[in-house]
């Protein structure tokens, strides 16, 4: 018995694009629509982005690099990296756990639970920060007494910043992984289990490899957002220069205080990270597509 793997050509009539007949009146809109789209995106997105690059390097590379001698900028960068370094692993564990727990089950309220996980996307970041203040502030918070008696500092300190970052970024991972797991079904896990694998082995050797690109994609989105979070962190940090100021807060503060060059220098760092994450995302998307295509050509499908 040989398994016949169909080639792409024989996959179906919809596989290859057919030459379309020329239609009258189409040529104008065929030029106009891309033109309008490009103009719109150019004005709304590209031009502002180019402006940051131009302003950051307006006096050449030397002055741009001098910005990094600023003590405030470096300490802001450090705090941002710390918050990201704590938030991303926590959210990765949660995201994978939530995905494996939710995706393969059907239960009442599944859609509701998925919406609840999405909540941080629809709540204003400022309100997220406010929630943390109302919970942990020593004077106003619901747990204020507990926090005070333990001698912790959460609000106006780094734990608050970390918590705020965690809240606004935790949905990404689960959201990316859940659809893929739902699509794939559980035959492979079942097979592994019948062959005697433990839960942990099944997770590491079957589940995780099958969602690796989606998980990586989620990781990139989480990291990018964690590095750039502004609103929630602004509320809880107290914005003390050199102490509880993250890089995005530093950008705003420097701009408001007419330290334009510093602002654009820091913005360029964050913008660079954003562009790198976009490129990585494109790469991972392509890998994800390949995986999906491979799954579709699978003899069973």
């Amino acid at each position, binding site marked *: 018995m040989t398994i016949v793997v169909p080639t792409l050509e024989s996959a179906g009539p919809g596989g290859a694009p057919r030459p379309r007949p020329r239609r009258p009146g189409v040529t104008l809109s065929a030029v106009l629509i891309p033109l309008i789209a490009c103009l719109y995106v150019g004005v709304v997105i590209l031009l502002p982005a180019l402006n*940051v690059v131009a302003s950051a390097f307006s006096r050449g590379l030397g002055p741009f690099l001098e910005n990094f001698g600023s003590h405030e900028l470096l300490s802001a960068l450090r705090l941002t990296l710390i918050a990201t370094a704590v938030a991303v692993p926590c959210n990765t564990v949660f995201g994978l756990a939530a995905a494996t727990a939710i995706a393969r089950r059907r239960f009442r309220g599944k859609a509701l639970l998925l919406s609840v996980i999405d909540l941080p996307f629809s709540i204003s970041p400022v309100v997220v920060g406010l929630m943390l203040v109302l*919970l942990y502030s020593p004077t106003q918070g619901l747990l204020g007494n507990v926090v005070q008696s333990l001698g912790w500092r959460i609000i106006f300190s780094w734990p608050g910043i970390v918590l705020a970052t965690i809240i606004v970024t935790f949905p990404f991972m689960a959201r990316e992984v859940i659809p893929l797991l739902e699509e794939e079904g559980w035959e492979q896990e079942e097979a592994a*289990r019948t062959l005697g694998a433990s839960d942990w082995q099944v997770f590491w050797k079957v589940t995780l490899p099958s969602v690796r690109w989606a998980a990586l994609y989620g990781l990139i989105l989480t990291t990018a957002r964690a590095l750039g979070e502004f609103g929630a962190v602004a509320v809880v940090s107290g914005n003390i220069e050199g102490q509880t100021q993250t890089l995005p807060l530093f950008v705003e503060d420097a701009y408001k205080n007419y330290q334009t060059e510093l602002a654009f220098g820091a913005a360029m760092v964050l913008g660079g990270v954003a562009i790198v994450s976009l490129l990585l995302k494109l790469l991972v998307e392509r890998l994800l597509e390949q995986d999906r295509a491979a799954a579709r050509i699978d003899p069973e499908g």
Partner: protein
Amino acid sequence: MTAALPRRWRPPPLVLPSWPWRITWTYLGLILFLPLGAMLLKAAGVGPAGFWEMATTPEAVATYKVSFGLALLASLVNGVFGVVVAWALVRSRFPGQRLLDALIDLPFALPTAVAGLALTAVYSTNGWLGQPLNEAFGLKVAFAAPGVTVAMVFISLPFVVRTVEPVLRSLEKEQEEASWCLGASPLQTFLRVVLPQLFPAILGGVAQGYSRAVGEYGSVVMISSNVPFKDLITPTLIIQKLEEYDFEAATVIGAVMLIFSLLSLLVINLLQVWGQRYQGDEA
């Protein structure tokens, strides 16, 4: 051979039972439900009369008008241009298409503070676009209401494009060809055949963008002059109240925004269900 499989295998065994669930619920409880509960408790502690009074002070109402009104304007603008961009991405082939596709995601990836800085610099009266606009029309964009709108347009554009794009891609070309064969003009075909099928997706994208634009803080706070009754948005008002140590007012206004978020989440979910049903009918 399959008949020999024991029966109890029928309901598939749970993958990783209990531990993932425990992690999920503990995490959600500590990270999401606890702060959410604290906020709702604090807001409930104010009492209905006090809540209504503080939620509807003239200052607060003015910010609602700015936040909800300008966000509506921005998401409607994107409702139109987002469809155009999605159309260009799906139905056309032109140089630079990949770049256009990548640029759409930039507002997602770019930290809002950087977006705010970039937009402020471009649209201020000596910026690349702000200067010509100011000289030609006397229009002040940055540090005024138009600037707030521009920032909201920037951050909500991807939502419309990314929701419409997959639906547009899945449309069957045959329907449009049939419409042409029957003598409909391209415009008629678009309005009668394509648009009704895209409509749930457009509405869903606009609603998501609207919800995001209402809650947006980072980019708007930089391009706005933050003057009350002029272009002060609700999230900024919350922060100002906190800075004045007026925790009650901040809580109440925050609760108003929270209720709005919950409602919009509900609407977005309903729209998605509607859109899926619509697609399901075709299949």
